[in-house]
């Protein structure tokens, strides 16, 4: 098991290098000049050249890339072009907001979607099943930024129950969480339902019933654990999407998180900021995927045995 985890952690390194190359290349492809963006239209050529020299953006792209990556090896994420402050400070400051939001979304959507999925699988083709299916379709079809704006309109504007923007208190997280959870709830619920439907027809479920086990035990102890593997995968993937989706939602709700940092970074071609925000998000995503894979081992002893046998 330890060997498996170590191997997987080592695999994260090439993944991050690949991502850094892609992001850096894309940033270079945009024609704008960071110094020009910072100083504005009225700045003279001399001012721009001076600033470019100071930021290092006058150097060849490959050299810039290796400068940044070299700093990264020492734990230095570089300084923002715009604020000249270390990007690390900014990320440490903003990361908790995004991470907390993603965790909230994961908890809320899991807590809602799994019970609903199980119930609709048990009542396949019933009215309840039909209604949850329709709701799932609706939730998936709604664009998250639109849903966010609608929630804002209803709960902040009309009812005035919740603050429209901000990210300092728990109450600020309610609407963003609902917005991001909507699509997750729909997909996890459908996943749980279909996975349960498959498991519930298995012979070992009949064995459990033949033992005289009550239906509740049959469902929770015998069926759900077997049905969870694809659901856990989906939950892990969705966690990654939540981190990415935060870019949109954080700006809708003006939250001070990684998403808005990234968005501002892209607007001003602030390469160190964009690179760092994307790499941190990717790292988290890799770690979550690894956690999901490890959790398989706890769910299914057959997978655990595979991990242990891997050399």
């Amino acid at each position, binding site marked *: 098991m330890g060997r498996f985890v170590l191997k997987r952690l080592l695999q994260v390194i090439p993944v991050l290098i690949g991502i850094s190359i892609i992001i850096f290349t894309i940033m270079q492809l945009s024609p704008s000049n960071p110094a020009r963006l910072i100083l504005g239209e009225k700045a003279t050529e001399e001012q721009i050249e001076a600033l470019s020299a100071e930021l290092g953006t006058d150097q060849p792209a490959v050299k810039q890339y290796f400068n940044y990556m070299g700093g990264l090896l020492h734990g230095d994420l570089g300084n923002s072009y715009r604020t000249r402050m270390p990007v690390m400070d900014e990320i440490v400051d903003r990361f908790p907001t995004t991470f907390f939001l993603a965790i909230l979304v994961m908890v809320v959507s899991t807590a809602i979607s799994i019970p609903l999925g199980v119930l609709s699988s048990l009542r396949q083709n019933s009215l309840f099943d039909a209604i949850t299916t329709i709701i799932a379709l609706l939730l998936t079809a709604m664009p998250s930024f639109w849903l966010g704006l609608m929630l804002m309109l209803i709960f902040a504007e009309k009812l005035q129950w919740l603050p429209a923007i901000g990210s300092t208190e728990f109450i600020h997280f309610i609407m963003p969480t609902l917005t991001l959870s909507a699509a997750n709830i729909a997909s996890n619920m459908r996943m749980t339902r279909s996975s349960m439907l498959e498991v519930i027809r298995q012979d070992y479920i009949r064995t459990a019933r*033949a033992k005289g086990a009550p239906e509740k035990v049959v469902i929770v102890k015998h069926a759900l654990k077997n049905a969870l593997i694809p659901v856990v995968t989906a939950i892990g993937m969705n966690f990654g999407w939540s981190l990415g989706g935060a870019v949109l939602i954080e700006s809708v709700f003006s939250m001070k998180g990684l998403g808005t940092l990234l968005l501002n970074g892209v607007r001003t071609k602030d390469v160190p900021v964009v690179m760092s925000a994307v790499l941190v998000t990717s790292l988290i995503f890799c770690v979550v995927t690894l956690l999901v894979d490890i959790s398989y081992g706890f769910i299914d002893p057959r997978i655990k045995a595979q991990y242990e046998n891997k050399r």
Partner: protein
Amino acid sequence: MENILEIKDLHVQYQTSEDTNYALNGIDLNIQKGETLGLVGETGAGKTTIALSILRLLQSGVGQIKSGDILFEGKSLLELNDTEIRKVRGDKISMIFQDPMSSLNPVLTVGDQIAEAIDLHRSLSKQELSDMVDSTLELVGIPKSRKNDYPHQFSGGMKQRVIIAIALSTNPELLIADEPTTALDVTIQAQVLHLMEELKQKLNMSMLMITHDLGIVAQICDHVAIIYAGKIIEYGTVYEIFDKSREHHPYTKGLFGSIPDLTVETRRLTPVKGLMADPADLPEGCYFHPRCDECMEICKNKVPDSCGMGGEHYVRCHLFKERQV
């Protein structure tokens, strides 16, 4: 002898969106205390449906008991509510399923799965429960040290032993064995059968042995019922059924014609021609008539009654009704 189980005129249908499958069409069957009844028939004849009906485990919404009754120790199983039938399942009546590969839960240890069966019906302390799991495992010849292993760490024969252990852990009065050896290779088959026979003697159970293997029937059954398209077409003691000097149902003759006899020189085996009747579209009259070599006019429109052939031997066929008159 007292009957432990009586099935009376049982009709079961499987309702699918396309059509209705008439799986059981008036089954009458008794199992006496302490005996083994062999239920023999082709795939699709309704053998497993009988077993699942007894435990009321037919897939809900699809399989329905339309009419008839099933009495266990004189009380109707069909009238029990959900809680009451759960007390019968696994405690008084246990079942061994056909496919050992898929009948054990892959994410629970073997010990846990046996313990669950006992725990559901007995209130024991943790230590007593654990001791009982150990002794049940040893009863079926598996070292108790393996109780914390998962099903994937066992071979097919071992898994079937575990399934037998689960079924026997509560000392049931009736054991339903649904083709317990079909998925196993011949040497393991012999071991498992031997084991079941031994345990049956030890625990004084009654047994319903579902199989399509006449060798197994000859080896361990007291009575035999032959089922075709959801009807018992012949019933008798194992001696009566295997007695070649007696007259049999044409289908039974066909079944025996399709197993090799080592004492007689035969060039080819004679299979029963044609295919099993389609349960969604059963023929008029005797269900077997389209495949029967001795089919008469009456067979095509009248369902035959059961007629006594002497002793406990009954055959459901028009041939004998005429001869008896």
